[in-house]
C-alpha cells in the first residue's frame, strides 16, 4: 500500500499559533471577554489604546442611552423590530446583563430624544459586535 503523503501544516513565521491550531485559547477568550466587557478583548491582547478607546466609546454610548431614558429590549418573539432591537441590545454583553438585572431602561419613551437613547443602546451593542470580531481577527493573526 502506497504511503499517502500527509500535508504538514505550514508554520507562519509571523503567527506561529495560527498556522498550527486555528482555534487557540485566545481566539475563544478574546471575543468572549470582549463581548462581556466592551474593549476587554483588545486589552487582553495588549492593545491598550485601542481597547481603552473601544471601551470608552461603547460604554459611554450605552450609558448615554440609559441616561436619555432609552428603552432596553427584552427577549421576545413578537414584532420583528423588537427582535432586532433585542439582538442589538444584547451585543453590549455585560452592560446589557447588568441593565436587565437592575431593571433599568424599562420606562416608557416619554419624549422625542428618548428615542435617540433607544438607538444609542442598540448601536452600542452593534458596535461591540464589530469590536468582538476585530478582537477575534487579532487573536487569529489576521490583523495586527
Amino acid at each position: 500500500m502506497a504511503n499517502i503523503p500527509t500535508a504538514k501544516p505550514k508554520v507562519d513565521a509571523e503567527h506561529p499559533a495560527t498556522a498550527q491550531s486555528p482555534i487557540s485559547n485566545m481566539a475563544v477568550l478574546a471575543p468572549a471577554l470582549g463581548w462581556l466587557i466592551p474593549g476587554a478583548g483588545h486589552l487582553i491582547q495588549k492593545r491598550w489604546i485601542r481597547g481603552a478607546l473601544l471601551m470608552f466609546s461603547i460604554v459611554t454610548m450605552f450609558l448615554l442611552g440609559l441616561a436619555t431614558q432609552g428603552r432596553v429590549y427584552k427577549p421576545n418573539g413578537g414584532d420583528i423590530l423588537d427582535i432586532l432591537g433585542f439582538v442589538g441590545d444584547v451585543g453590549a454583553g455585560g452592560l446589557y446583563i447588568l441593565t436587565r438585572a437592575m431593571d433599568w431602561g424599562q420606562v416608557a419613551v416619554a419624549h422625542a430624544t428618548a428615542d435617540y437613547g433607544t438607538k444609542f443602546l442598540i448601536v452600542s451593542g452593534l458596535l461591540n459586535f464589530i469590536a468582538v470580531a476585530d478582537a477575534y481577527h487579532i487573536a487569529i493573526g489576521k490583523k495586527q
Partner: protein
Amino acid sequence: MTLELSHFSAAVLFAAFASIVFGITQRTSAREQLRYGLYCFAMFVGGVFVAGWLMWLIRR
C-alpha cells in the same frame, strides 16, 4: 438621572463614538485608523447637515 440631548448634540455624539469604533476596527495602522475615523465623523456630521437642508427644502 435624566438627560435631554438636542437633536444635533445627539447626532454629533453618535458620530463621534461610531467613528472611533469604525476607525479602530476597519483599519490596521494607527495613522490609517485616525484618518478613517475622521473621515467617518465628517461623513456622519456632513450627512446630518445634508439631511437637515433637504428637510428644510421639502418643508418649503
